[in-house]
């Protein structure tokens, strides 16, 4: 159980880094929002992997943290998309 959790831990870290690098290097706003979500998925993978690392059942508190993280990421993505649309509407004029 712990070995597989460690694999996911590393995977999560890699996905987070990939998202973060893309977010900081691209100028396109929509790509930024997508990259932010990729980084977010990586972060939550790290949380879930950490929850599964100990002996016995996975830790529910870390799952609760991950759930709250998902809710916040969805809300923030919505706000970001509204702003991106406004930028592109202005460009279209």
């Amino acid at each position, binding site marked *: 159980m712990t070995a597989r959790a460690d694999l996911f831990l590393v995977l999560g870290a890699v996905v987070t880094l990939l998202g973060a690098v893309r977010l900081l290097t691209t100028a396109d706003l929509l790509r*930024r929002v997508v990259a932010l979500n990729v980084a977010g998925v990586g972060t939550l993978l790290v949380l879930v992997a950490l929850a599964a690392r100990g002996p016995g059942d996975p830790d529910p508190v870390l799952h609760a943290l991950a759930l709250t993280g998902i809710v916040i990421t969805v809300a923030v993505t919505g706000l970001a998309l509204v702003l991106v649309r406004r930028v592109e509407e202005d460009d279209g004029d």
Partner: protein
Amino acid sequence: MTDVLVLLVLLPLAGAVVAALVPARAVVGLVVAVAQLALGVVAAAAVLRDGPVLGELGGWAQPLGIGLRLDGPGAAVGLLSGVVVLAVAAHAAAVPAATGGPGYWPLVLVTVAGLQTVLVADDWFTTYVALELLTVGAVGLVALGGRRAYEPAVRYLCVAVLGSFAYLVAVALVYARTGPLALHDGAAAMPPGAATATVLGLVVVGLGLKSALFPLHAWLPAAHAAAPAAVSPLLSALVVKGSLVVLLRVWTGLGGDAHLGTLVGLLGGLAVLVGGVAAVRQERLKRLVAYSTVAQVGYVVLLVPLVTPSLLDPTDAAAADVARLAWQGGMLILLAHGLAKAAAFLAAGTLVQVAGGDRVADLRGIAARAPVVVMTFGVAGVALAGLPPSLAFVGKWQLLTAAVAGGAWWAVLVLLVGGLLTAAAVARVVATALRRPDDDEDDAPAAGAPVPRRVALPALTLAVLAIGAGVGSAWLADLTLVGTGVGT
């Protein structure tokens, strides 16, 4: 006293809902701002008298319930927030054009609620949620700046949320290691080592992104300059400070790390120099003021390497003295910057409006038309540069003394050069404003209506406070130490 902590958060939140529903939004905003200042005074007095104020939401003990704890730095920043929000709200009520639209009032109150939640939250995870609330409110405020502000707002949002992810991973690591998630006493459960250094590194990167710590500051000047005139002061004076306070709390709570501390201090020093030089070189007034915020964040984190030796070895009495001085100095600079920067941004917003352009060159001769506003900008600049008897001077003096005692000579150099750079940037603006308009110019601007007193007064009050608060500021310095565990 728990009720006060809960009210500090719930009052602005309820105010935001009411302000979104009723037409008299400015009245709601002003009433909440006055009440918030009163609550801030009560809370700060209680913390100064009895030590940190603790509470549990709904009577549920940690870790099931949400633990509340207001320490000295939290109370001091809460007090700063009360003063700044009231002054900015008074300005916004006098100049509706400076707000960017009716959405201003609910968004300001949501942002204040977010900041207060950050200040009173005692566990890592509630702090995460509160930081997100603060970010969302602040991004909404930036977006009020209209079409030029949308792009900086998206950039700000993406960068700030990325910072939150780094912080969230740090939270998970601490939890997986120690269990409970109380913020202020992690040091016992997390002994110094690779795990603590990883957590601190993630927190420094994550909250550094949110606080615009060099070299993670690129988003700030664009966002703070594009925001409406009555928004920029709140962003620079308060929003940046929320994540900065959390960074310092985590650092002292986990006991610090020597190498990382030195790195943070060096980044702070570079921030002072790079931000200062960039401010001097800016063509546009609001970007000039915004770059000065990058420099001022650098001053505050200079305290980190000076506090760390005492955290690592609590028995060292000499290190404890240095830590206390450095902590007080850094926190006083943080508070002084809040007052002075809010005044500078309010004055800059009024000057841009009167001049009809936001270039420094457009300000030529404006002192004849808006003398009080130019004076406000100058006084705020003196307070930012840290000339005596301003509050920033007291803070810099403490930090200088700590740097000399702690053997950090480079910090002394940074503090002196940084003050000169700030003075140069402000002097350039004031000198342009005082210059006589060209006589041969046919299109010399007609003398418009003078700036009304109710527009000029809030900024002037803040600037005078930033200078005057330095006199008899011992209580404030004592307040910033309460409940932090620094130098004990």
